[in-house]
């Protein structure tokens, strides 16, 4: 286990010598054609370590993190991922392969992605799902540019709810900027779309209306059919943000007239990972040629057997360059593979159970917190999915800080608003959280 030179190159001295001789070079440095004035003659200030030393160093860092029980969500959720997903997804043939430029020797991954697309199609009811975007925020950004391409003449406004995660809005604005779109907000009523206000706001400048369901505050919306109608009337795209667990239970977006579904597909397959994600992107068949990202199609090979391949690549940057539907190249394929695996292990029954628990746990936990003196939950008089707001008599930041001292992490949303998220991975700690709330309220 060498620490000088790279342990990941196999060359013996004799190999190097023989190879240089064939090339006709005296030593390795002769092979570099770097002008002297830009050559780096120094030593990088990075010390080599052997494998156990790196492991113990990084482990030491991570051990510095406080061991808190998280009741956190707001766009990044934790559901239990079965071990088998780790074991299968780590198989070298999946983990260490790349984009399927040669489909004849990458049928395995292509089929997985085809199955992923199919699951998303089933969940959304839309005909086309791509095989990944970076995360929910960039998927939303790509939906905006799609809207811009489809509606390029008539308008420049992308409407989003006032209840939107700042980070997601910021990413969206960056995508919109180059497309000449402006992001504007519509107001919410008790945590859900204010349909009347939206109706007043709609005009022909609007190229797309974005709703989330559940919202970033965990609210399950109730009037989305009306939003679909409004979007339709104004020839705007109806863009819908969600995730596969919610989709298992909530009304299918296609039934609501949704044009594009985006969101966090990583709610299946990825554990909590500091915000790493998987962008879900599905749309109607009529927008197929404008879809961003990679698509896998089924076809036949020369022997007449079913085979899978990347398809409609002329949409993509490596062929269409500046006229591509997106600049995306490397995507999140491996996360999509994990998502597909997780969904396969759950099956429809497991998936619906998980979604049902997300409603019931949120209802139970908010109810119990509501019973405590000094707190009101949920703040919005709605059905909730996984998470909900808590209004606190005392400053929210102080409450959250005290809860952290007790070993629990919750969100601070506003001066007196906290947000709490409960899933299968922390439901066992509900009692303790309620007790901690009671404790810190004193």
């Amino acid at each position, binding site marked *: 286990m060498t*620490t000088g030179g790279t342990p990941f190159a196999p060359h013996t001295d004799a190999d*190097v010598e023989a190879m240089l001789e*064939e090339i006709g070079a005296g030593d*390795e440095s002769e*092979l*570099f054609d770097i002008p002297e004035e*830009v050559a780096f003659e120094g030593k*990088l200030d*990075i*010390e*080599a370590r052997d494998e156990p030393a790196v*492991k113990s160093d*990084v482990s030491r860092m*991570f*051990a510095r993190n406080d*061991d808190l029980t998280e009741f956190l969500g*707001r766009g990044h959720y934790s559901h239990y991922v079965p071990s*088998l997903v780790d074991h299968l997804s780590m*198989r070298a*043939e999946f*983990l260490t392969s790349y984009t399927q430029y*040669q489909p*004849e*020797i990458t049928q*395995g991954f292509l*089929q997985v992605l085809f199955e992923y697309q199919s699951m998303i199609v089933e969940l959304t009811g839309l005909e*086309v799902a791509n095989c990944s975007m970076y*995360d929910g925020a960039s998927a939303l950004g790509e939906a905006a540019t799609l809207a811009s391409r489809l509606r390029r003449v008539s308008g420049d406004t992308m409407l989003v709810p006032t209840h939107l995660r700042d980070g*997601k809005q910021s*990413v969206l604005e*960056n995508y919109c*900027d*180059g*497309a000449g779109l402006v992001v504007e907000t519509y107001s919410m009523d008790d945590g859900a779309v204010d349909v009347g206000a939206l109706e007043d706001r709609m005009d022909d400048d609007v190229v797309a209306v974005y709703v989330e369901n559940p919202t970033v505050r965990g609210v*399950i919306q109730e009037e989305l059919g009306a939003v679909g109608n409004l979007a339709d009337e104004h020839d705007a795209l109806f863009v819908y943000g969600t995730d596969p667990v919610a989709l298992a239970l909530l009304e299918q977006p296609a039934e609501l007239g949704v044009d594009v579904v985006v969101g966090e597909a990583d709610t299946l397959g990825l554990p909590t*990972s*500091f*915000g*790493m994600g998987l962008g879900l992107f599905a749309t109607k068949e009529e927008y197929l040629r404008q879809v961003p990202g990679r698509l896998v*199609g*089924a*076809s036949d090979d020369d022997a007449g057997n079913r085979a899978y*391949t990347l398809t409609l690549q002329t949409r993509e*940057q490596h062929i269409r360059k*500046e006229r591509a539907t997106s*600049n*995306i190249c*490397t995507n999140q*394929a*491996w*996360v999509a593979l994990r998502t597909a695996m997780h*969904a396969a292990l759950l099956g*429809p*029954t497991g*998936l619906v159970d998980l979604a049902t628990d997300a409603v019931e746990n949120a*209802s139970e936990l908010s109810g119990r917190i509501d019973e405590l003196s000094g707190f009101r939950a949920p703040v919005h008089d709605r*059905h909730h999915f996984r998470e909900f707001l808590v209004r606190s008599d005392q400053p929210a930041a102080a409450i959250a800080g005290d809860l*952290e001292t007790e070993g629990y*992490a919750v*969100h601070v949303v506003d001066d007196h608003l906290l947000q709490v998220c409960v899933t299968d991975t922390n439901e066992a700690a509900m009692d303790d959280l309620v007790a901690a709330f009671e404790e810190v309220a004193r």
Partner: protein
Amino acid sequence: KHEPLLSEKNETTLEIGDDSPLPDELTRDSLTLPEVSEPEVARHYTRLSQMNWSIDSGPYPLGSCTMKYNPRFTEDLAADPNAAVHPDRSSESVQGTLELYHDLQEYLAEIGGMDAVTLQPPAGAAGEFTGILIAKAYHEHHGNDKSEVIIPASAHGTNFATAALAGYDVVELPSNEEGRVDVEALEAAVSDDTAALMLTNPNTVGLFERDIVEIAEIVHDSGGVLYYDGANLNALLGRARPGDMGFDIMHYNVHKTFATPHGGGGPGAGPVGVVEELEQYLPKPQVRERDGQYVLEDPEESIGKVHGFLGNWLVLIKAHAYISRLGHEGLVDTSAKAVLNANYLASQIDLEVPYGPFHHEFAATSGDRDAADVAKRMLDYGVHPPTTKWPEMVPEAMLTEPTEIESKESVEDLAEAFNRAYADSDETLESAPNRTTAARIDQATAARNPVLSWHTLDDEA
């Protein structure tokens, strides 16, 4: 060997109505998905994996993709339960996570000769987008009215798409006879409208842009910024740094240069480095060290965010581990062996390599043979072929990058696959491959009649 779709194994339609905790009108009617047991899931994906080429299967010399071995100990670190934290945790409670994040910012700055680095972009193209947004913010902040980004014709497609995504017009720059940037053409192309020149160095046929100092001067004189596409950084580690060459902004592809797994297409990560003057435009937040504590700070003139949270965290952990495993000596040796392998491979193949001296990759030409056909035939010889028909400056290009991990014998196997395929008859090439899981797949037909989910497949059958 055919593996049925999961939906073909067992599909169940679950009626949801009555069991829903929600009112009917908020609940979907039913859900139809595969319902199979855990052993069947294990077999399904195990079999599919065996129908997939990977770095651990054998040579994978895709030019400009830097397919190198992914050390497995880095996976263990990414799986550390203590690393599994939510991005909304208080900074005080995730000092370990922030320490690693900060260290990697520093490592990358050191390697690139940059002053500050953001780790937020989740892929190389996202890094480009971030970089161009920074250039744009810089220009807007200084009241510069810029509308164009100059890009060499041989550059990656992402460069063009990124410039367009950021709202710029693209000016395409031809190469000179030697395969490098044509300095005169560049002088002609730059103007007051030039926001940036995006450059890959060594370029996409492996040539170092020897005139880089002059190029930088031209761009800077025009008021533009110089952007470095990090796709080919594997050639230069510890030997030349973009910052020292005059680049103002660069992205790093950690899944190329720093050995994080390609994962069948991703996730990667595309950190971006900038010179000091541009640090204030970096995405928010940056991780900074203040009095021994790691804190999240928003740069003053930040472009905002390019990822919903802090990027592809699990990937970043692996890149950090790889870099600290190798250190200076390992990084320098990496480039040495990558360049050695490319040159040795070129010396052993019968195909012409029109440009040189190249570094870690080269574009051979299959001349009057179709490069894509030669590639398909190489599959039969047990290797992954190079990138084909790109860049266009080389006719029937086979862009080849063996990386440092291949042994002499392995490079020779690759050369043999090249030479045998190149020597095979046209008929053989056109009917190739024959020894693979699937025979040749006609992509044009697949695109004419897209079947994108098992739902429409059923309709077809």
